[in-house]
């Protein structure tokens, strides 16, 4: 059965193969397990890019397939990061505290250890009490459950409220943006209990694994991210290839008709919104231990908009498009803003990419929206010379066969 599913979706097979080859290549070239041609910091960048690919898939599902332009998925991504970050910080600090307390003549009580951990973690932000939300921070299993649960529940509650009152289209986008803004403003407060602007840091040091060097840890995370991306891709491909996929595409193209056909549009949207939030949470939980620090600035609305940018440039409505977009744009961005790109001298003015890259990105985004709604993935269509009936007008949605502009006006 699985075989036939893969056969029906050759792109999935190709993608998974490419991902596997990529992972093996990086491992072979890395400092820890191979030739040392790729520096550890770049391995981390690649690992993070894979996580971004995963959250891009989630975004593509809600936006490219279901037409819900959510500007909140990076918030779910960040929440996943916070959840795993709490355990990492707690556990690492506990190790430090216990080792420093072991010299004391009187053995510490459990309460004293907790107090000391609290002081250690919250001392920098001027407090020492453990807030309630850290109740499960001592348990890896519970925090891992929360990685999925917290974004999922938030998405469910928000989605249920929004879809129930039939907020759709740009209104939903603005509302999700407001939710993201509220969340980031909340986390910016010191009183939020997650260390305010400082966020959770030192996440790259895995508790109990101090002896393992970062170049090894970075490869582990690369593998984990690749695995998560592969599984996420499979799940997403399976979802969109079945009946569920047909219904959500139908919702994207004409919500009213699908509703009149008797489908519970709201339930479909809500299910998809929640599941993709969970995927985003998992991606975040893998991303931030590689980044080393998570703070509210990561959750700011702009991040979610960038996510939409990646998916749009990569190509909506194609899962591999989303991954390519996320990988391509984030890597190219960091190349240009990293100061490595050569300046262009025009004689009277020197173009410094650090200054001009955002302008290029912004404008290229306008151009992609206007002239290439299929994004980079559209190139694959051309290369494969896949044909579709030549109907009049531009695509309304990104998929071949979507409602055409002129038809929509009728």
């Amino acid at each position, binding site marked *: 059965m699985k075989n036939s599913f893969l056969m029906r979706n050759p792109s999935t097979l190709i993608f998974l193969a490419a991902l596997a080859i990529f992972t093996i290549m990086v491992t072979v070239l890395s400092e820890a397990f191979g030739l040392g041609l790729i520096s550890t910091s770049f391995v981390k960048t690649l690992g993070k890019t894979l996580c971004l690919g995963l959250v891009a898939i989630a975004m593509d599902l809600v936006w490219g397939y279901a*037409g819900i*332009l959510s500007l909140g998925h990076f918030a779910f991504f960040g929440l996943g990061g916070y959840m795993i970050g709490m355990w990492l910080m707690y556990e690492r600090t506990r190790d430090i505290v216990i080792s420093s307390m072991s010299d*004391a*003549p*009187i*053995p*510490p*009580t*459990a*309460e*004293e250890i907790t107090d000391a951990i609290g002081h250690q973690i919250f001392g920098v932000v001027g407090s020492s009490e453990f807030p309630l939300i850290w109740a499960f921070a001592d348990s890896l299993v519970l925090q891992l459950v929360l990685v999925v649960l917290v974004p999922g529940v938030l998405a469910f509650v*928000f989605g249920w*409220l*929004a879809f*129930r*009152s*039939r*907020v*759709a*289209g*740009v*209104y*939903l*986008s*603005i*509302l999700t*943006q*407001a*939710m993201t*803004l*509220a969340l980031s*403003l*909340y986390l*910016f*407060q010191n*009183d939020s209990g997650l260390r305010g602007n400082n966020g959770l840091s030192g996440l790259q040091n895995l508790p109990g694994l101090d002896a393992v060097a970062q170049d090894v840890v970075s490869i582990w995370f690369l593998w984990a991210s690749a695995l998560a991306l592969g599984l996420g891709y499979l799940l997403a491909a399976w979802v969109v290839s079945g009946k569920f996929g047909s219904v959500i595409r139908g919702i994207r193209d004409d919500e009213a008709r699908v509703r009149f056909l008797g489908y519970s549009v709201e339930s479909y949207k809500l299910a998809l919104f929640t599941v993709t939030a969970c995927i985003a949470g998992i991606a975040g939980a893998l991303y931030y231990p590689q980044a080393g620090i998570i703070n509210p600035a990561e959750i700011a*609305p702009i991040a979610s*908009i960038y996510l*939409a*940018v990646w998916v*749009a440039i990569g190509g909506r409505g194609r899962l591999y498009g989303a991954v390519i977009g996320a990988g391509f744009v984030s890597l190219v961005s960091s190349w240009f803003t990293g100061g490595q790109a050569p300046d262009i001298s025009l004689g009277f003015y020197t173009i410094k990419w650090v*200054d*001009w890259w*955002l*302008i290029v*990105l*912004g*404008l*290229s*985004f*306008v151009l992609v*929206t*206007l002239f290439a*709604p299929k994004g980079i993935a559209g190139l694959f269509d051309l290369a494969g010379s896949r044909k579709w009936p030549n109907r009049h007008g531009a695509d*309304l949605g990104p998929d071949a066969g979507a409602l055409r*502009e002129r038809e*929509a*006006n009728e």
Partner: protein
Amino acid sequence: MKRLILAGLALLMTCTLALSQEAPMQDILQDHSALITKSSRMTIAPAIAAISDSGLTQAQDVLQAWQSKDIWQRKSDGLFFRAKETAEGSYILFDFDSGETLGEADKADLKQIKPNSGVRALIGSALVTFQLQDSDPARRLAALTSIERNPSSELLAPLRASIDTETDADLKAKKRRAERLLTIAYDSDESARVAAISDMSGDLGVDLRATLNPLLETRTEVFAGEAPEGLNLARRLAPGEDISTEAAYDLLVTAGLAPARIDQAEIRATLGTHISEQEVGGVALEDLNQPEARARAYAALVAQGLAEPDPTSAEIKAHLDAHQFVEIYNEPSRPVTLAASEALEDILLNVGMNQSLDLILDGLSLASIYFLAAIGLAITFGVMGVINMAHGEFIMMGAYTGYVIQQLIPNHTASILVAIPMAFVVTFAAGVAMERLVIRWLYNRPLETLLATFGISIALQQLAKNIFGTQALPLTSPEWLDGAWVLNDVVSISYIRIAIFILAISFLAIFLFIMRRTRLGLETRAVTQNPRMAASMGINPNRVNMLTFGLGSGIAGVAGVAIGLFAKVTSELGNDYIVQSFMTVVVGGVGNIWGTLAGAAMIGFLQKGIEWFNPSNTLAAQTFMIIFIIIFIQFRPRGIIALKGRAAGD
């Protein structure tokens, strides 16, 4: 009396000195040279007293020069002079005693005496007696300000003496008020103080409250048994009700009336000092990570007499019952505290009402800022249904236009008058260009409009950074907008906010006029309701869309000038307002200007209201406001004022 003797002595000294050297003031300054150059409020008093009590005519001149940082010391001989800067950058020196010019000196040879603000205030107080009767009203005002800032009992008599001779009516009123306040605080006659309090009751001034509140300051004391008679008691404190039992017991401990409680850290430290053979008090060391084991071990130590016992709750209660806790006024006079507390009660009620008024003004002001930021959006998004994420950047563009104009035209009033139409023109043109180049291709793809305009938004923001830098730039308001409209010490609002309010109102009027009374408004309404029908009536929808979008953008530009005046001009200016602006339009109800107004009012007042509940955390106010809006939209998805037949997203 002591002061008088001192003054006499000083006078005597200066007389003898004057006889010998003919430079009495310079001698005084030299005597206190170290203090004057060190210039600290803690040590300067003798120097000031020596000058002001010298009885010399030049004392006032010296103090005034000192206060305005005009005294310089010559490095070569350490002599002090009043110095005045010449056009060439050197300094003309004046002798204090003769008043004569002593020629010029280079800045490198001089050292400026810089009294800090605390020292200047002390000099000001010393000057009061000289200046109260001064012929220059500005100096008399300075003396009054000094009294207001640093009231003291010695100033009461000279102040009273100066009232009758005061010619300026305004100053006379001020002097009367200062005299009343000093009477309340310092008069030796109890009935005069009570009378002054009743004279002033109902007044809202901070200075009055600042005079009354110290009279009502209390201290908490503990007495074994009953409190003695003759104290000006404010109230008795019952432990557990008026004061927590912990705090009450701590008071007993600090007064030495009860043994201290032992906390966990102390228990742990005590246990640590009594370890013997891996045990403490018969409890094995490894068990001591349990709280009850520690308690057992400590009890054992107490039994052996090695540690102080922790008082039990029964003991604590017995101690508390045996004592009485009272709050006592620092002010001994009962009638004064009574009158003061009554007066203060009235005032506080009045202050509370005025604070609500002030809050309303603040809310109104914030609402008008939001309205101003959102009104352009009400046109492009509300009327045309085009989502424009670059709206904030149009606001920014307007603000930068204002900045550029201000660089070209130095006169602030003229530059603002030019900047407003220029900002409109610039952003109108930008809006039209954007509509022609991008938006018109996307009218049927609203989500993609959002993304494309977002691309423009980041490009414009970065462009502004490249051109103007990341530094916040000043957009200075004209002088007549400086300051605030002050109703009383509680209610005030800055003129710039009033101007923004007026601007918002006039924009509302302009908007209504254009939409209801002009051809463009008619055509806009026609095109937005049914473009094809409008086109068949001879209206060119392309042109109308272009002009309407330009109008919305232009208004955003003018809003930018206003916002820049009130806050700052940075490339991220637009970012701060974009989400709030969309919220304003959506909450208010899309497609209706009154809705936008209602939305702005609701958001503005709500935010101020939440801030009022939680004054120490402004960030929380913003978070709660957004959450409230999200929930509000669930229940009224079409906004406060909904157009019939349109749901959000249709």
